[in-house]
């Protein structure tokens, strides 16, 4: 990479004249074949700057080159819907929620940076997803985080987890976005590769929708936000496109970006004011691959060209050369297309917010992306060749050798607790396990109240945000994933992730509407991983079709492995639902005494990948619970109708840890006990993880109406007990006081993390 004061800048003319000059494409992550392909597109060798653009845009992270052939199913199998205003391929999907409102939401990984530098890695993960939402024209209104770490008591987890949580707290709180939910899970498979998946949701009016398209030749390209520095050059794109360990990785490690949430807050307010003033023709955020990504995607999206002067980019480090500017992943930047007549007003608004803004180029009708440096042309490429037409690989996939053995290792063979004392101890052990323990240590570091529209947040099943104060319209969001289920059966595991998030959203009384996903997998170059990935994508696409909820966007994170050992396949699924009146939301807490507790759904003995097997035996084997999407759909209908009709006082979905854990959580959340009689075999009744189930509390006098509603939708229902008292009592087996439940539940994380 050349410095500006160095002679011999690599111009387009020079590239044409020196076709044989050796270039460091391999160091930048391009294969021999990909480099040849660039030469073929250009009809010459690329300049240094062009090589920089192609290397980041064709990275796995930006190009989806290994996943694209599979991800097509999300569109091909998408259920018919009128709710989708913008779908896959945009920065984030946009969904019509009625009353003229639209919401946009997306989940994205920041796994690799968060392992290298937990605090800044997680912080900039929040910043990046917020800009994706902002780029669609929406005001970001809430965030969530799905986190997975190695064993809670492992020394490195004590480095990584507090750093990640601290980074999310630092960035999200300072940015003023309520954190309304997420996940926290632990497994040895994430020890060298934590998963940090950040979700953001934004709200807009239909007419506010913005697209990443540079239209209108003559319009100006305005770079808004932070100055460009040498941050994370090749960071997200290169880090997330290679695994840790092995050889030659050292040079890629120190590439984590540094976040400034204050600048992001100004950028958000500034952009929203630019939108409101009608000044923005098209806009793109600068995330992975920075200026390279924004310019190529804007030009490709608009079917136009751009002429950009890289000298005009404001720098934090004057020594940066053009290739470095193109690859820099400096945070808190946006690129807007503005009509010439609006530039003055645009600059005024940016100045109001003390946000730097600079015209760096203009839209052309040439269909080429052209860039100059010190008056010399250094980039001249067809933008779509970098943005859309990257390499596509059909990676080989092979069922892992151990898959059959894993399936045959049925948990039925594991010793089970019998009798009251044994079952009681098993429940307390699960309740105290890091996976199921109270998450207050984490959530207390996040502001859930800012903006004043948070109706539900942890430990509720889903986050719920009010959108319209007058009508009570709102949106519910949940993310779920289960790596153990997905390891045993990636197809079913992905479907379980979707079904659980769908159920969680429904449990608040909302109607599930749309899906986002973050696919966390090992190396796509490993056929066993590719088999898992293909199965998970197929499972999710099929399940979305069955449930009638389309995938609106998402993210794939490959290379989640250290020293050749991949994580469990971990599809994390986010579901968004619309709540017609948030005042009628259901929470999980048991309230007034004397109300009937009902179990909805069918229970079978299903323990493969269960929390019980994990906590009691460290066991993962057998088959995950059966997926019944039709039952999920009917259960959701019961919950929505029950909430809307005022029949229910509380609802909680059943998932990890089965009925036992759900009842304990309901008691602790509401501060009231219950007495139940188990409907079948005690162990199965308490701990089975059969899907499509929920526990609900009927409002006094509504028990028969709830039962009728279940019958109408073909959902099995049984009255299992009644709320009240100061303990969780299971008839004939055991009783645990709320104090003892609370002690078991609440001490685990503080004991480990301080």
């Amino acid at each position: 990479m050349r410095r500006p004061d160095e002679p011999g800048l690599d111009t387009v003319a020079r590239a044409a004249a020196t076709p044989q000059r050796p270039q460091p494409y391999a160091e930048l992550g391009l294969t021999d074949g990909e480099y040849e392909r660039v030469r073929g597109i250009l009809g010459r060798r690329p300049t240094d700057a062009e090589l920089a653009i192609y290397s980041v845009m064709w990275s796995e992270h930006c190009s989806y080159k290994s996943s694209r052939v599979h991800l097509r199913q999300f569109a091909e199998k998408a259920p018919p819907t009128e709710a989708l205003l913008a779908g896959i391929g945009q920065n984030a999907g946009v969904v019509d929620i009625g009353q003229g409102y639209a919401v946009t939401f997306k989940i994205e990984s920041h796994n690799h940076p968060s392992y290298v530098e937990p605090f800044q890695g997680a912080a900039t993960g929040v910043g990046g997803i917020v800009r994706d939402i902002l780029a669609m024209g929406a005001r970001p209104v809430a965030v969530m985080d799905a986190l997975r770490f190695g064993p809670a008591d492992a020394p490195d987890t004590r480095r990584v987890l507090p750093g990640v949580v601290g980074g999310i707290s630092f960035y999200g709180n300072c940015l003023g976005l309520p954190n309304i939910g997420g996940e926290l899970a632990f497994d040895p498979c994430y020890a060298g590769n934590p998963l940090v998946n950040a979700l953001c949701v934004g709200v807009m009016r239909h007419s506010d929708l913005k697209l990443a398209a540079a239209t209108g030749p003559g319009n100006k390209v305005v770079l808004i936000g932070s100055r460009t520095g040498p941050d994370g050059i090749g960071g997200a794109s290169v880090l997330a496109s290679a695994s840790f360990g092995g050889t030659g990785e050292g040079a890629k490690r120190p590439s984590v970006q540094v976040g400034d949430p204050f600048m992001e807050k100004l950028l958000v307010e500034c952009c929203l004011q630019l939108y409101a003033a009608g000044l923005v023709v098209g806009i793109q955020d600068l995330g992975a691959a920075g200026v390279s990504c924004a310019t190529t995607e804007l030009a490709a999206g608009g079917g136009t060209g751009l002429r950009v002067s890289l000298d005009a980019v404001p720098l934090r480090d004057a020594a940066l050369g053009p290739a470095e500017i193109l690859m820099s992943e400096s945070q808190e930047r946006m690129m807007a297309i503005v009509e010439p007549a609006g530039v003055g007003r645009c600059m005024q608004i940016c100045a109001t917010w003390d946000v730097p803004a600079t015209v760096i180029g203009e839209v052309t009708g040439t269909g080429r992306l052209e860039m100059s440096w010190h008056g010399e042309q250094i980039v001249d490429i067809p933008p779509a060749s970098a943005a859309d037409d990257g390499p596509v690989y059909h990676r080989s996939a092979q069922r892992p050798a151990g898959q059959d053995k894993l399936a045959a290792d049925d948990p039925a063979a594991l010793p089970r607790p019998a009798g009251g004392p044994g079952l009681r101890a098993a429940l307390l052990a699960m309740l105290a396990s890091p996976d199921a323990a109270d998450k207050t240590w984490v959530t207390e570091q996040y502001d859930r109240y800012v903006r004043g529209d948070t109706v539900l947040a942890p430990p509720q099943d889903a986050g719920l945000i009010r959108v319209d104060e007058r009508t009570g319209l709102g949106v519910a969001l949940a993310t779920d994933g289960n790596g153990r289920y997905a390891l045993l059966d990636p197809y079913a595991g992905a479907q379980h992730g979707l079904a659980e998030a769908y159920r969680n959203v429904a449990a608040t009384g909302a109607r599930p509407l749309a899906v986002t996903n973050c696919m966390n997998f090992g190396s796509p170059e490993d056929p066993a991983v590719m088999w898992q990935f293909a199965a998970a994508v197929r499972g999710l696409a099929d399940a979305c079709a069955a449930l009638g909820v389309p995938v609106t966007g998402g993210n794939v994170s490959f290379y989640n492995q250290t020293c050749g050992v991949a994580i469990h396949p971990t599809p994390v699924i986010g579901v968004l639902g619309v709540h017609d009146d948030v005042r009628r939301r259901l929470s999980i807490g048991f309230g007034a005494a004397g109300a009937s507790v009902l179990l909805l759904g069918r229970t079978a003995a299903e323990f493969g990948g269960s929390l019980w097997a994990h906590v009691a035996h460290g066991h993962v084997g057998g088959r995950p619970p059966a997926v019944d999407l039709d039952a999920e759909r009917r259960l959701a209908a019961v919950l929505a109708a029950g909430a809307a009709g005022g029949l229910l006082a509380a609802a909680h979905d059943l998932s990890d840890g089965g009925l036992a854990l759900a009842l304990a959580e309901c008691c602790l959340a509401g501060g009231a006990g219950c007495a139940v009689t188990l409907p079948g075999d005690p162990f199965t009744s308490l701990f089975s993880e059969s899907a499509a189930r929920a526990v609900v509390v009927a409002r006094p006098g509504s028990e028969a109406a709830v039962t009728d509603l279940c019958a109408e939708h073909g959902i099995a229902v049984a009255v299992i007990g009644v709320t009240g008292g100061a303990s969780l009592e299971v008839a004939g087996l055991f009783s645990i006081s709320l104090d003892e439940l609370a002690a078991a539940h609440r001490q685990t994380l503080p004991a480990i993390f301080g």
Partner: protein
Amino acid sequence: MTRVGVITFPGSLDDGDAARAVRRAGGEPVRLWHADHDLRGVDAVILPGGFSYGDYLRCGAIARFSPVMTELVSAARAGLPVLGICNGFQILCEAHLLPGALTRNAGLRFVSKDVRLRIENAGTPWTRQYAEGQEITVVLKSGQGGYVAGPAALAELGARGRVVARYAGGNPNGSAGDIAGICNQAGNVVGLMPHPEHAIDALTGPGTDGLGFFSSVLLSAARA
């Protein structure tokens, strides 16, 4: 209708919530911009929570030099009711309208939780709707909420009834004397670390206990 100004600094976050609380209490919120030398004739002013200037240098240290603060400081000295919430409290301390400072929480982590407060002084324009000794539940959310002041200043605050509220259910951040809020000598300027504006509706907060701060100032303005 009583007009209550809410100042927006760069990085203010709870300005919309403060304005909503004023409206909910029956007043008219008036948005004020940090860069304007103008209080627009309001009857009272709220400095809202947030991270003005990203907490750079020290919390509130830069916002205290915002143009609007010139007018605010002289109006406050002349008796205008002023409430600083969280970052607003920090700004009031930096502006020397209130004594002491807010420091890093004792646990060194951001703390966001519902807290119990005991109202110690129900005579200020922001607390007269409460009874002395009344306990209320509001929201605390801050990383630098630990109140500190010299021994003499603390003694004076206590002796002159200038502690407006103390934490009642355990000290969440290491504040001296469990102090959650204080006022100036005249009582018109109040700084409060927790957020009453997030406790105005049981749907979106822990209840409605916080509404009293806003209805108090409307009552005060009506009497004045």
